[in-house]
């Protein structure tokens, strides 16, 4: 019985997770175009089989992202292309808040039922210029400060491992 309940809880949490996932990240459902001639790969690896080659300035639909790769559908074929070979298609023709908001809300409103809290609004240039200090909020902020050891445990818990890597040169040559 206990096991069954546990399983049920597990299942429903998976269900919740799936719901969030199925609702899809904000990144999906965008259209993009290629900034260079690029290969569509069967898998998100540079040595995976090539499905087709896309010319520069070809329109594609983004399905999802995995690291530096994006799964796309296109007239030439479906598969994975390098993320940085793509730029989003311009949304300049859309006007008003509706364009972007509706795009973003695909991802989040469905899964979390998010509504804007009363009284919370945007942050304008004027707000910043006229800002007066809020010491109470600042003290609250300080209470969230995390110690090194706790941060290291946090990383271990998710199997995050430090990597050695130098900064990049600014001109792109190595």
């Amino acid at each position, binding site marked *: 019985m206990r096991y069954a309940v546990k399983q049920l809880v597990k299942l429903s949490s998976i269900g919740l997770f799936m719901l969030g996932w199925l609702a899809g990240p*904000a*990144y999906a459902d*965008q259209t993009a175009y290629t900034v260079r001639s690029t290969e569509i790969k069967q898998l998100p690896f*540079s040595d995976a089989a090539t499905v087709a080659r896309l010319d520069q300035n070809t329109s594609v639909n983004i399905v999802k*992202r995995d*690291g*530096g790769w994006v799964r796309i559908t296109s007239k030439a074929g479906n598969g994975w292309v390098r*993320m*940085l*070979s793509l*730029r*989003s298609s311009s*949304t*300049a023709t859309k*006007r008003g*808040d509706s*364009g972007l*908001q509706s795009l*973003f809300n695909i991802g989040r409103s469905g*899964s*979390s039922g*998010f509504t*804007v809290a009363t009284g*919370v*609004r*945007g*942050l*304008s*240039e*004027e707000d*910043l*210029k006229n*800002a007066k*200090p*809020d*010491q109470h*909020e*600042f003290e609250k*902020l*300080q209470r*969230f*400060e*995390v*110690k*090194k050891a*706790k*941060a*290291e445990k*946090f*990383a271990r818990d998710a199997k*995050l*491992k*430090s*990597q050695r890597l*130098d900064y*990049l*040169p*600014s001109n*792109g040559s*190595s």
Partner: protein
Amino acid sequence: MSIRALLFSAIGLLSGCQHNGMNIDFDKALSIAQKAQQANKTITEPEEISMGNGIAANLLGASPLLADDSVQQYVNEVGRWVSLHTERPDLPWKFGILATTDVNAFATPGGTIFITRGLLQKLDNESELAGVLAHEMVHVLRRHHLAALQKEANLGIASDLLGVALKEKNSAVLEKAIKAGTEVYARGLDKNDEFEADRMGIVIATRAGYDPFGLPAVLQMLEAGNAQDSSLALMFKTHPAPRDRLNLLDKVMGNRFDAYTAPAQTDKRFNNAVYQRI
């Protein structure tokens, strides 16, 4: 600021004071000018932190924190872990989610980083969050705000603000410095400092074990954004176009980041800590 400009201004300061019937020591005026010129280099870490804390309190006056301790804690854990992979791991790094629906992130001198609820809500995973926080950290590491403040302030303010006042613990001038420092966020930083923050930010996030493409993914999401959207207005005004930022990352990243991926556990954690909550 050139030495000559500083000297002229220092002399101007001096003669101005004389006109007002005040008696000022020329050596002192000169030393103020010299200090101003070197302020960005000579401002000490405690001074940087106290000024940054004042600016952080101001930003919190513009938007309070999101009232959710659990998400605040999570963002602090991600941020603190990432900060350990910078060259200033011992700063009092702290992170806050501002309640505003605006899409933006800010860093104040000395290590306080803010991300807005509006931006956090648009992120898909922990690597994207790490990428955004790492970008902001670079502004702190490289003291970009102090540079912007010094560049824009006239000599009088610059010398007051950075050269002398903080050392002499003159609270009225510190207050002025904090006000001017807060206004920098309405104008934005130098374009090249933003590019630098992208370029170094992806490396820092990768060092912390995250997917290097977290930040580029956020930029691509922003690129698809509508310039007419009011929640993006300030961020678009104060940063180079996402497309230009992506073009530069495209040039420097190549395929040298292909080997790095984030552990799947981070996705699950982000889903529970953020996705399901806000």
